[in-house]
């Protein structure tokens, strides 16, 4: 699927899954990235590869406003610049040591990959709140067919799970897999939310085993 201008904004993760002072791995068409939130709450996206020896920065840790690599502790600021090399505490790290970064936007409890040159805002979904993210070992098209819902924009599906209206934000991942961010009605009760989460598991089983009937 070409990702040129059709869907400049890609959903990456749910805000609740990334509390302050945490980092998570994210797959994007540009490659693996580390999405992290500072202690102060600022979101950043960095290439998931430490410039030192290539360790995944998503295995690292957040201290204050910096992301540190788990391997030798090099730390990076939100712009990707290396701040500190513990083995050489007196050295001001050269400006040339930096990790590539990307832009993100957060709205309605969803974190989106944005483009610095594109001012569009993420879609919003009045009446819906994020429930959970889950990955499917099949493409978006298979999920769409299994759900039997309707498309509501690029990568956005509307349907019904366990009797509740739902929205699925789909992001294609590596090797034909898909990451789904599931939104449920804001007024759903706890029991209804749990039922929707379980129905999503059923949908995934059906999609992955090629059962065509809808899981609603």
């Amino acid at each position: 699927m070409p990702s040129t201008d059709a869907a400049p904004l890609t959903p990456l993760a749910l805000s609740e899954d990334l509390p302050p002072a945490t980092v998570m791995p994210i797959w994007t068409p540009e490659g693996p990235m580390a999405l992290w939130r500072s202690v102060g709450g600022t979101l950043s996206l960095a290439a998931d590869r430490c410039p030192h020896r290539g360790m995944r920065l998503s295995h690292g840790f957040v201290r204050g406003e910096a992301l540190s690599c788990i391997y030798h502790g090099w730390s990076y600021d939100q712009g990707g610049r290396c701040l500190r090399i513990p083995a050489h505490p007196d050295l001001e790290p050269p400006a040339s040591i930096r990790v590539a970064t990307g832009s993100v936007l957060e709205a309605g409890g969803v974190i989106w990959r944005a483009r610095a040159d594109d001012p569009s805002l993420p879609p919003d979904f009045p009446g819906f709140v994020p429930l959970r993210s889950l990955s499917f070992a099949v493409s978006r098209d298979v999920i769409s067919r299994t759900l039997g819902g309707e498309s509501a924009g690029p990568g956005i599906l509307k349907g019904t799970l366990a009797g509740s209206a739902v929205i699925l934000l789909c992001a294609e991942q590596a090797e034909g897999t898909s990451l789904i961010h599931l939104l449920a009605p804001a007024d759903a009760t706890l029991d209804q939310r749990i039922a929707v989460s379980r129905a999503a598991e059923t949908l995934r089983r059906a999609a992955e085993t090629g059962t065509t009937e809808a899981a609603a």
Partner: protein
Amino acid sequence: MKLYDYILSPSCYKVRLLAALLGIPLELRAVDFHPGGEHRTPALLALNPAGSIPILEDDDLRLTESAAMLVYLASLKSSDWLGRDTAAEAARTEQWLSFAQRLTASLGGARLCEMLLRPGDLAALQAAGIAALRELEAALVEQRLRGERFLVADRPTIADIACFPYVALAPDGSVSLDPYPSIRLWLRAVRALPGFIEMPGIHRLHELKPEPVHGAEGEPA
């Protein structure tokens, strides 16, 4: 209390971890599991004919199942950790203790294949491990919806300790933990517990330690 222990064994680590969290001192007796295979020697088979570790001895009590060891340690010290406040809670705790055996068989089996080059159907073990991780993730999603951070309550219990090590070490068997946001937060919550101890492959939360000052040791160079 004496634990027959091997540093790289996730099942032994469960017992060491809970003992540390509860402040119970253990006498550790190192077993040369690999490469020595000491757990299969006559002396060790005399203690546990099943030929597995951990083995826990306390006076005339001898235990060979880690789940029973967790129950014993928690019963000695604190009923909170037992996860038995209500009938439903007790049953759910048991459910996770049994589930932990599936983690040992699947993720643990994949890890033995990858790390010790044990023969086995790696792809089947990994698939069973992924199925177990998906179940765990779904359960933790429901717990979070209920406002609870751990497996059976909003406090840690032996259910969490029984499941934690093999899940945390899944990447050793080439099973990725990337797709599970609720598992990620749960692993973090366990690692943040006061008194948490490490094993090779499972580290503490570095960010909870103060930033090392100029030239101090503590972080690898």
